[in-house]
């Protein structure tokens, strides 16, 4: 595997096939925990870890897994790895576990993990699979971060509340001051759908603009003379 191929996979995960706004997969945890940046990014980081591990393990074992029972085996492996991550966090990174703890078991229910295992790791080498897992995870984390930021800002007028649990002494930013009455809809599940809808529309608009530009200026060599 060369560097170019890795870059292709990474770009695919972060933008072209972004789990949140293009594949629209794994919405349950996205909508449930994106009420603040800290919650959202925490879940994103834990998901990156589990996706990298499950993609790696399944790509390495893919030749031993019979095609007929691949789905039960995938689910077994994902659930086992999630349990191991959960226990290890609890034992060795207890402070972080207090923040992430409730989110880690949610990862089992995130269909994006199973989707990447089925669509990518079952057919590719371990090294590119781990890149795919991390890239897909980063793509998801970015969407989660934006969703969390918008919902927290509109809903409660703060940013980064709860950061002191990750970084002791850090302060949440109160953007609109303490008098901000809050906007409950943003914090409740509909807020997640509204915000996600706007994100999807925004991404589609960017892509459409790019496509329109490409149509106007066909990328042929003759059409782009040097303006020297």
């Amino acid at each position, binding site marked *: 595997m060369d560097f170019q191929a890795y870059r292709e996979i990474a770009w695919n995960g972060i933008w072209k096939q972004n789990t949140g706004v293009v594949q629209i997969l794994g919405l349950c945890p996205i909508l449930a925990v994106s009420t603040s940046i800290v919650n959202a990014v925490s879940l994103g980081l834990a998901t990156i870890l589990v996706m990298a591990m499950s993609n790696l393990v399944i790509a390495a074992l893919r030749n031993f897994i019979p095609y007929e*029972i691949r789905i039960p085996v995938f689910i077994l492996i994902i659930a086992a790895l999630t349990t*191991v991550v959960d226990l290890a966090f609890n034992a060795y990174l207890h402070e972080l576990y207090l923040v992430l703890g*409730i989110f880690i078991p949610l990862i089992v229910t995130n269909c994006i993990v199973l989707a990447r295992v089925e669509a990518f790791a079952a057919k590719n080498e371990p090294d590119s699979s781990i890149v795919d897992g991390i890239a897909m995870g980063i793509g998801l984390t970015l969407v989660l971060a934006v969703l969390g930021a918008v919902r927290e800002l509109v809903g409660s007028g703060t940013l980064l509340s709860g950061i002191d649990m990750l970084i002791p002494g850090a302060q949440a930013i109160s953007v609109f001051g303490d008098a901000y009455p809050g906007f409950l809809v943003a914090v409740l599940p509909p807020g997640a759908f509204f915000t996600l809808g706007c994100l999807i529309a925004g991404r589609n608009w960017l892509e459409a603009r790019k496509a329109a530009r490409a149509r106007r200026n066909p990328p042929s060599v003759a059409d782009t003379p040097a303006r020297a």
Partner: protein
Amino acid sequence: MSEPTALGLSVRTGSVMVAFTAVFTAIMAFTFSATKARIDASATEEKMKLISEVLPASSYDNLLLDDFVTLGPTRELGLDEGGRIYRARKSGRPAALLIETTAPDGYSGRIELIVAIRADGGVSGVRAVTHRETPGLGDYIDPKKDKNKKSPWIAQFAELKAADIPGCKVIKDGGQIAYHTGATISARAVTNAVARAARYAAANHNRLFAAPSGSKP
């Protein structure tokens, strides 16, 4: 190679499935036993930290975690499977009861609480031990998630004296406990559970302090 029969296929894939299950269960079991000691230690430390938040360390001088009574299923405290009450004493005299109690009617299921009731019947402090209230909405019952760090919502209970217990209801229900608009259910569940614990402590005070440690009163 001929087409495999259904029986042959299920035996073959079944044994592969069993092999995978055995291997990954072993990995989980190994991780569980390797991390158990550390997880238990963190849980005890967590518990002591929580206790120090509801009851100042200066108000008692006994070994709190070793001085408890075990309760069977207790309806009044919402305990379906029983729980513990720790007894704080100062110079041998009753100082406070630390009651494990459950609010069964949280917005997303049960809220486990620890409630410290002073010997005079007032509330010393309350903390949510575990809950699944909506993040960003009902989870202000947990001071770590409460945006108001200076006077978190749950600190209201520490001001309750014995005479205030009848008013230990949310304002909507005619009591004196404030709550966040739009998230009354979480606050009401905690408030009612605290009131129940305070009444239980008042009604059973002598019996609870007299019982030998570790026994069922």
